[in-house]
């Protein structure tokens, strides 16, 4: 409770400093707009913000889904066959260190500006994250589960389906969260580079017209959305991986008669 008050307090201090600086006229509102400016922007342009967010989210979700599914699929394929792995692993290793943002100029050159290169950028980022973590997750499945399934008569494909797939879910959900968070950054960056709509595009416009207040509102909108999406995935995670949660052991408790050792120990001492 005290810690929570302290945490609230630190937020409050930041808010007060912000209000003090801006309302007191210490800082030019061109650099740091005050709370009333922000509220005004939200009031006058929430429709534009929502429709912009709609565009951005559509691209982001499309890219995230395509990229993640491709990554997980290819990762599973690579982990299931040594031949496939030998062919694809060097290619994955080749593109893995490329910072996704670095390929933006290339995408624009090849595909112009529009939805396709934007989605592709998100696809690329999510794909790399998921393919690497899927291969890793399969490698980390405890041997004992595989051996147990084998001694019960299960063959390769069945073990893959009934042991490997469920065992990697917790690790994958963790990576999905990382990919989702990364995809927000990527989609906004893609819109900075070339777009006719979307939150990132609105931010670039606001920058051109020196509307610091609009920029801050856009940042807030994308942050809140990213946070909400993360909450949804966490909900999903809890449902999918309930079996990993540690519960208090039900115990092997059986009523036992209390044996006393003290008496025995004393008797032995007596005799010696």
């Amino acid at each position, binding site marked *: 409770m005290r810690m929570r008050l302290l945490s609230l307090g630190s937020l409050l201090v930041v808010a007060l400093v912000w209000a003090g600086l801006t309302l007191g006229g210490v800082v030019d509102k061109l650099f740091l707009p005050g709370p009333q400016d922000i509220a005004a922007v939200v009031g006058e342009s929430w429709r534009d913000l929502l429709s912009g967010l709609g565009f951005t989210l559509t691209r982001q979700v499309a890219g995230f889904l395509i990229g993640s599914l491709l990554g997980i699929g290819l990762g599973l394929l690579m982990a299931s066959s040594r031949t496939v792995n030998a062919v694809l692993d060097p290619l994955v290793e080749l593109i893995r260190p490329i910072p996704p943002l670095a390929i933006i100029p290339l995408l624009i050159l090849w595909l112009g500006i529009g939805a396709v290169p934007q989605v592709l950028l998100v696809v690329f980022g999510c794909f790399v994250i998921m393919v690497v973590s899927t291969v890793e997750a399969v490698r980390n499945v405890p041997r004992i589960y595989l*051996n147990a*399934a*084998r*001694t019960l008569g299960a063959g390769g494909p*069945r073990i893959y389906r009934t042991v490997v797939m*469920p065992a990697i879910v917790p690790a994958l959900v963790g990576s999905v969260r990382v990919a989702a968070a990364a995809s927000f950054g990527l989609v906004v960056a893609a819109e900075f580079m070339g777009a006719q709509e979307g939150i990132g595009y609105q931010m670039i416009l606001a920058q051109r017209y020196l509307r610091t207040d609009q920029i801050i509102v856009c940042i807030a909108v994308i942050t809140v959305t990213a946070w909400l999406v993360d909450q949804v995935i966490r909900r999903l995670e809890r449902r999918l991986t309930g079996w990993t949660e540690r519960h208090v*052991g039900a115990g*092997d408790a059986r009523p036992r008669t209390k044996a006393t050792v003290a008496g025995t120990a004393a008797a032995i001492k007596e005799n010696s």
Partner: protein
Amino acid sequence: MTDGTLSISALTKTFAKGSTTVTALENVNVEIGAGEFVAVVGSSGCGKSTLLNILAGLDRQTSGQVLVGGRPVGGPGPDRAMVFQSDAAFPWLTVTENLEYGLKVQGRSAAERKRVVGELLPLLGLEQFAHSYPRELSGGMRKRIDIGRAYAVEPEILLMDEPFGALDVVTREHMQDELLRIWSARRSTVVFITHDIDEAIMLSDRIVMLSPRPGRVREIVDVPFDRPRTPELRESADFYRLRTDLRRMMGEAVR
């Protein structure tokens, strides 16, 4: 299907470790009859787990032969179900689903699976936890899932690799009594690996003692106690005498 006999002859296993080869097992010969409970005892590094893995078909011998019911081992199979030292119950499946796993592999019908699980749950003392996940249960209960899952496929041979090694003393002895109870209801050949001499005496008909580096059969000892064995046996003078002798033997084997 096999008849539950195990014949191990001139079994040798070597590992390549860098440029040197390590001999884990050397010329091991043991004959195990159907329905016999055999404990394999030895200090760590005597190759007892390697031996069990070869019997299970998870590992291959360098030379020698293992016959199960007269036929050489080709790979893992449900005629030789295995219980491992660490928890091997699938954590993403409930107790019932774990017990059913091997039966599903064999393609048994839902009705038959239900019948087998229905018989096993009370035998294991897990009726109330049929739909619990392993993580919700204690170490002893999780071990019972492993044992039940192995028993569900009705193996002729049960291979147990220090199954109670990770449990505390009280739970371990309780599980030994439980295993004897389950085993007396479902007689199968058992090969039980342990480094705990008390456990070996309490459970087995014969004790195969291995000496380490390289793993060789040091001695094969008949356990003279009648069945059914009760927990009181652990406190008898005869038990202590046998235990003392075996401990001395194991100490010599290490030296």
